[in-house]
């Protein structure tokens, strides 16, 4: 097990490096840099900028250095000092702007994960055990529609329904009266009460996929001879199903953390924009639209890194759960 953990940890290093390169590319790709945008803004406000000033600024931010040097300065600042650079749009440190929102994104993604497990587990088991029953068809159809509808469409429909029939516009995880309050029980309850709708919306596609996977796996397991043996031994039906096949097909639940997390983060970005939640989504889109590239690049970097860590956790959990993954060479014998 220890060797497996060490190997997985080592694999993470190149992945994180690649993510940082991509994030840096996102910062570098747009024509011009944040200085040109800054100068454009200054001259739009009627302030002249002389060339000496521009040169001084370029010098200060090292914009004339080779790209590799710039990358090194950027990434070492982040890794060594936690300095993500300046947001040009807000005139503030990127890290000040980002961390609160990333916290909320994480809360949202994790609660979505939990909810999709809670929904998918009973439904998946049911539709496999009662294959081709009315309930199975219902679950399948709902699952397909859930997969096919873009999350932000669901959010739009939800926003429309709540506006039309309940006369309230949606928005925000934290209600207005708690906006500046410190964290206490009331605020937590308030957040929870606002959270379940976005969680449900973001979770649809993932839940639907999870139900499909669990159903397929369980169907495969149920056809195996050991199930017949267990039944022939006279075990009660629920025990036959729960004791072996369900446990065997639970692996996808754990590996979902790995393959659902990227989807959740992406879906969260879109849904948050529609429902105007204070997560990373709207921040990222705003930053990209205004070419606030250090902010955008940092958000992409942190989201990517968090996803990779989540994937790692799920892999380790899976290895702990399923010995076939820990000892791949044993199984082939």
């Amino acid at each position: 097990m220890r060797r497996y953990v060490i190997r997985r940890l080592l694999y993470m290093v190149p992945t994180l490096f690649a993510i940082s390169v991509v994030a840096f590319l996102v910062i570098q790709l747009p024509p011009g840099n944040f200085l040109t945008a800054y100068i454009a803004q200054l001259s739009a406000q009627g302030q002249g900028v002389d060339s000496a000033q521009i040169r001084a600024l370029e010098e200060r931010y090292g914009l004339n250095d080779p790209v590799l040097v710039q990358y090194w300065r950027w990434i070492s600042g982040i890794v060594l000092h936690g300095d993500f650079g300046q947001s040009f749009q807000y005139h503030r440190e990127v890290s000040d702007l980002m961390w609160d929102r990333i916290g909320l994104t994480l809360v949202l993604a994790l609660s979505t994960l939990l909810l999709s497990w809670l929904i998918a587990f009973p439904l998946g088991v049911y539709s496999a055990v009662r294959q081709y029953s009315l309930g199975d068809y219902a679950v399948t159809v709902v699952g397909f529609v859930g997969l096919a509808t873009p999350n932000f469409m669901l959010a739009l429909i939800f926003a429309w329904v709540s506006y039309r029939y309940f006369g309230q516009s949606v928005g925000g995880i934290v209600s207005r009266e708690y906006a500046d309050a410190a964290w206490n029980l009331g605020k937590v309850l308030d957040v929870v009460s606002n959270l379940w709708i976005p969680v449900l919306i973001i979770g649809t596609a993932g839940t639907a996929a999870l139900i499909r996977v669990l159903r397929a796996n369980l169907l495969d397991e149920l056809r195996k001879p050991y199930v017949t043996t267990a039944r022939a031994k006279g075990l009660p039906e629920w025990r036959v199903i729960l004791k072996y096949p369900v446990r065997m097909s639970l692996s996808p639940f754990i590996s979902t953390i790995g393959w659902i997390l990227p989807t959740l983060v992406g879906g969260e970005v879109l849904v948050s924009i529609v429902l105007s939640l204070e997560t990373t989504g709207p921040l990222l889109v705003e930053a990209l639209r205004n070419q606030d590239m250090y902010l955008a690049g940092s958000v992409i970097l942190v989201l990517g890194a968090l996803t990779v860590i989540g994937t790692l956790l799920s892999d380790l959990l899976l290895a702990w759960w399923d010995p076939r993954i820990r000892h791949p060479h044993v199984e082939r014998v």
Partner: protein
Amino acid sequence: MGALPDRPAPTGREPAADPAATGTVAPGRARTAPDLPQRTLVWRRFRRNKLAVVGVLVLCALLLVSVFSEFLAPSTPSAYSAEHTYAPPQRLHFVDTEDGFDLGMYVYGYQVERDPDTLANTFTVDESVKIPVGLFVRGEPYEMWGLFPSDRHLIGAADPQQRVYLLGADRNGRDMASRLIYGTRVSMSIGLAGVALSFVLGLVLGGLSGYLGGRVDTAIQRVIEFLMSVPTIPLWMGLSAAVPRDWGPVQTYLAITVILSLIGWTDLARVVRGRFLSLRQEDFVTAARLDGCGTGRIIGRHMLPSFTSHIIASLTLAVPFVILAETSLSFLGLGLQAPVVSWGVLLQEAQNIHSIAGAPWLLLPGAAVTVAVLVLNFVGDGVRDAADPYR
């Protein structure tokens, strides 16, 4: 390759579509499954899946709409009318019972009232005004496929001076039905083009990975794992934000397609690799190698044919992802830009809760997305299940 004398002749004698062929075969006649060509077997199995068959029909309809958009649309996507801002959909009547019984299509006109405070138009149906609707009518001029100028539309107001809004109008009084039809063309084509590009990447890289194995395999697998572990939407957003704003519609379209396929090829590459890995061990591949076939011939003639249907299935299942991605990006304003009409661009109009509240028909492009994705999933699932007829 030696001839195989005692192999039964390939039985293409009976037409594949013959319903009798799919039914029970009399035991005396040795028409066992392995005798039939692979194509027939796949088609038989596919036909048993009703959802997939319905999917194929709807998919064909969508493709027809994308090909003949100009003719099918009642108007053009850019024709506007200030007095029809957010005009609601008009119900199409087929029978006129006012005096007797008259066949013929018509819609009722609008009664427009302008709110003096908000300047918003409120529309009520005016049953005293009838706007006759006809088939193959003259209307807004257009150029079919950008080549042949014409002004014939499949359906529209019989009098070219009048306007008909079967699916309502948007902020500028542009016809939603026409925009939706043109959007179908752009969204479907970007899905197909993106997948075509991912297909090339996935086939080449997955094939190399699976056939060569070793270090190449490890390297390509690492890249795939990386791309799959990154949240795609933020990445797509970052890359498409880098597309210069002053690029023309065609350039943006191509750039977005490339971005989508750069990240979307991974799934396909994994499928191809898995197939290659399992086929590499097969006896017939060894036999071909011992016969002195070159790598290209082994791959092209011996390995590829046995998993083309798997590839088709993966391709079909990949199209909806590209469509969803394009819709999401354009919805955020980071994908295709305004003069181009795609489902995502249309949904931008629906971002504002107040415009949806007043004009819920702006959400129709979203329904189109759902239908397209659903249908492609059904077809893809059907092909995948039918791909392996011996199972």
